[in-house]
């Protein structure tokens, strides 16, 4: 007999990855807190996490791309436009960050540019990403709250049993204390 394989919960995976991306984003956005080395390496890893995030939502991306000019709802369209802007902005943040890298790329002997437009562009796109990420979270806030309740709060909080269930939960030979 083959062991039954339980299918991993898609929502749970999404929640864990999104939470990790959010924490990484907050830390990467604060180079004074993390230090420049952590800031750079975490941002590179952040790029990989974004790819994973996009792969997990690939069906939605393809679906809206196909129906964008046809029958998609306005909420889906605005969400799509915001996500495209966020992708462009995050790409610019990571790219300009690599261009002015002080720790990550020089480690491989790659000389990076000091000065020019890159510092300004990096700061501007990073500030913009904060607003776009805020809007992205805001548009998915209901889902976040729902999943947080289901996968974090409910398992943590003591289960509220009805009196009837409490009675049935008692072992048959054990007497109920008055």
């Amino acid at each position: 007999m083959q062991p039954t394989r339980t299918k991993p919960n898609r929502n749970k995976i999404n929640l864990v990855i999104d939470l990790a991306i959010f924490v990484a984003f907050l830390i990467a956005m604060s180079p004074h807190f993390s230090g420049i080395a952590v800031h750079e390496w975490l941002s590179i890893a952040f790029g990989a996490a974004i790819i994973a995030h996009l792969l997990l939502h690939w069906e939605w991306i393809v679906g809206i791309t196909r129906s964008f000019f046809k029958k998609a709802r306005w909420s889906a369209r605005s969400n799509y436009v915001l996500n495209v802007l966020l992708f462009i902005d995050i790409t610019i943040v990571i790219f300009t960050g690599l261009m002015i890298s002080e720790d990550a790329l020089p480690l491989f002997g790659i000389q990076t540019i000091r000065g020019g437009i890159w510092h300004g562009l990096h700061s501007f796109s990073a500030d913009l990403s904060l607003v776009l990420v805020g809007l992205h979270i805001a548009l998915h806030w209901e889902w976040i709250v729902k999943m947080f309740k289901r996968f974090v709060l409910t398992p943590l909080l003591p289960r509220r049993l009805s009196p009837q269930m409490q009675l049935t939960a008692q072992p048959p030979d054990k007497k109920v204390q008055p």
Partner: protein
Amino acid sequence: MKLLLRVLMIVVAALIVSGATFALSRTSLASNMSGPQRGQFERRPSTTADGASTREQASAPQLDGAGPPEGFRRGGERGGGGLFSLVEVGGHLLVIALIVAAVSFLSRVTQPLQARLAARRKPAPPASTA
């Protein structure tokens, strides 16, 4: 194979954005925005009789296109600023929280309007024959 193709598509999209950014940075508009280039300004005299100019030069921002002055980094960026810099993280968290709160408030306010619009778009149910 399908997964690799998808990853490749994402990477290509990111490369297009990066390429466009790089190309835009080479335009004259970008070079004007980045400030004066190295050697464009006449160098100040390093010292004066009272030494004031040297002090000014030390505190003035570098305008030779060699990146932001060291003072811009506020000292803590290289090695991490520790717990005090948590304020920075808190500030970012606050901005995101404010945006989420504002969008939630707006969607709650406009919810009756959206419901009314949706009801208007729905076709009227067929009249009962009874």
